[in-house]
């Protein structure tokens, strides 16, 4: 992995102070994704900080608990004040801030402008790299075929589709094999996966078939929730597909075992 990760810059990255919204799932379950995001942003020349945070509030929002959602949103707005940009390695959490925070404060003239201001400078990781910084190449290498799942919120709320593919095409040795219906939901849906587990399982089963049909030994996506759902299904069924967040591959940080896989040294 070389340091040569920016080609043409639309913004001068050296000037940029980035607040990393690490997301609750990455914070708790797989911090290595967060560090991969930090590496990509720092390689692009940005200064990265990770202010104290918990969650974007989406679980409460989608459960109809507006009061809790607003309390959490206010906390996020305060914590990320002053950063040039807020970047999340997740289309779902970035989408929550960008598409839903303003709506949350519809009737609040005090918070609404703050929510809009935060929304305007919040980005999903790959779209920030490509659309804002103009990055088209990363210096990573990854041998073999991968397939890519488009997570719903990133795709439909933020238009994240070409950006991860642009970056993946620059990874040395990597070949992207598109799956059928890459833009169809994996069945995760947050608490949906537990509340309506049988339906969720049927949806991820269809996804599993499409993943398998590509023959690619590695599955990538940009959202840890979807990745945990798909990885959980693949490991349960004994399918030899390694599941990783796209940032891990783009940053060349694939030393950690894939999602749902054991650490080799712990197997003894």
């Amino acid at each position, binding site marked *: 992995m070389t340091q040569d990760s920016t080609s043409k810059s639309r913004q001068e990255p050296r000037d940029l102070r980035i607040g990393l919204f690490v997301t609750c799932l*990455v*914070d*708790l*379950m*797989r*911090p290595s994704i*967060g560090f991969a995001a930090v590496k990509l942003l720092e390689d692009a020349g940005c200064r990265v*900080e*990770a202010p*104290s945070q*918990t969650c974007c*509030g989406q*679980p*409460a*929002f989608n*459960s*109809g*608990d*507006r009061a*809790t959602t607003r*309390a*959490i949103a206010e*906390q996020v707005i305060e*914590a990320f004040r002053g950063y040039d940009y807020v970047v999340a390695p997740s289309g779902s959490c970035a989408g929550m801030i960008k598409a839903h925070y303003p709506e949350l404060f519809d009737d609040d003239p005090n918070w609404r402008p703050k929510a809009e201001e935060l929304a305007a400078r919040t980005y999903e990781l790959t779209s920030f790299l490509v659309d804002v910084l103009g990055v088209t190449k990363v210096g990573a290498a990854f041998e073999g075929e991968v397939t890519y799942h488009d997570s*719903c*919120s990133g795709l*439909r*709320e933020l238009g994240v589709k070409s950006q991860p593919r642009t970056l993946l095409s620059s990874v040395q040795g990597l070949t992207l094999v598109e799956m059928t219906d890459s833009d*169809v*939901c994996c*069945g*995760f*849906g*947050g*608490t*949906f*996966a*537990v*509340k*309506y*587990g*049988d*339906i*969720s*399982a049927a*949806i991820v089963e*269809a996804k599993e078939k499409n993943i398998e049909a590509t023959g690619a030994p590695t599955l990538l996506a940009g959202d840890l929730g979807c990745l*945990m759902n798909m*990885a*959980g299904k693949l*490991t*349960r069924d004994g399918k030899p597909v390694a599941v990783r967040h796209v940032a891990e591959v783009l940053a060349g940080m694939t030393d*950690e075992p894939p*999602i*749902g*896989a*054991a*650490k080799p040294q*712990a*197997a003894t």
Partner: protein
Amino acid sequence: MSVHSTSPQFKENAARALSDTQLQRALGNVKQGFIDKRRKAVENLPEFEALRDSARDIKNHTLRHLDLYLEAYEAKVKASGGQVHFARDAEEARAIVLSLCREANARTVTKGKSMIAEEIGINEHLEANGVTPIETDLGEYIIQLRHELPSHIIAPAVHLNASQVEQDFRRVHKDLDPNRDLSQPVQLLTEARTVLRERFLAADVGITGANFLVAETGTSVIVTNEGNGDLTQILPKTHIVLASIEKVVPTLEDVSQILRVLARSATGQEMSVYTTFSTGPRRSSDADGPENYHVVLIDNGRSAMLGTSFEEMLRCIRCGACMNHCPIYHAVGGHAYGWVYPGPMGAVLTPSLIGVDQAGHLPNASTFCGRCESVCPVRIPLPKLMRHWRDREFEHHLSPATFRSGLAFWGFFAKRPALYRLVTRAAMASLGWAGRSKGRFNWLPLAKGWTKSRDFPAPQGETFQARWKRERGNNA
């Protein structure tokens, strides 16, 4: 509300649907056919997105002035010799239709496809009062033989395969030669057509729905692919149009605008095979048509949606694109939703019409993937409206108690970052330790819905925030 609802048993309905192999095979057709056809139709019309905007705007404008357009429409129907009857609810609508049938001394009634007819349960009511209703849309005819509700708003029998239909025909059509080959769909079609032709000629009253009512001219418009609607409304002496109040649009020009997105969104056709405009009863110069023309305008819960966040749902033109693109609908089909309207549009509309206490599952059974909204020809923000129902359920304590307390427990920590860091740090360390040898759990407390058919990946152990602090100190 009239038709019995099994929406409270959504989970049980869904479980049954998931284990029904025949149904699962039939649902495969929804996944493939409708989606590809729509995509091609949209690709061939560069102005499609602009037309969606204009369809949305036409419906919004009409809903804002609904009272005026309904009055204008009524005046035009009267001027053309027809009659308009207003029904506040399903019961009033049923009574009006029955009395019109009795005025016509009707013994049999033919029916074109109409979702509002399903909603008010007109067939059962007529039958109970000695009038025989006969569905003439092939799919509707089949499900009438089976005493089922439609499982899709434009393809009512999409849950069935040809051999099931053959069995139904052999069971009900007493004159059918047992040796006749009905193994091909076209043979089934011929058989249905033969039986239905006689019914068309014998019917005393024809009932149709309406895709649009035109205020400018007093016209009702139906779009069909089989031509059955035309025979239903032209041959009998009396034609009754059943329509909910939000079907009205201002002008014929508006209809032609919306028609450009309707069929493309529904079946991928540029236009449906038949688009039929009817205005009043037969005039002396007309070659055919009914002697009596009645319109029953039905509210049944719509006016209560006006002025609320659910008003947007009244834009719906019943194309079915939302369910055609819905992963939940693909998994469980339409009957699991338990009432008349399935899929995302049903998940928003049903709680409005039968109560969120009855239909509370429906807006929750969504991953919010947003594919429905992305294809809706009138841009109804379906996930947002489903979320509004979840807000109401939460406000009124209708969501399950265990779920609420779990959410409150999580919320308590999520609102306190310092405490959250402390607690999650310890929790993830022990969970990471517990899962270290396999890298995953095949069982977790409170997550049976997940772990029944999936593993739960183990956390790496140290949280991001702990490691960040360790490696980078307090930079924020």
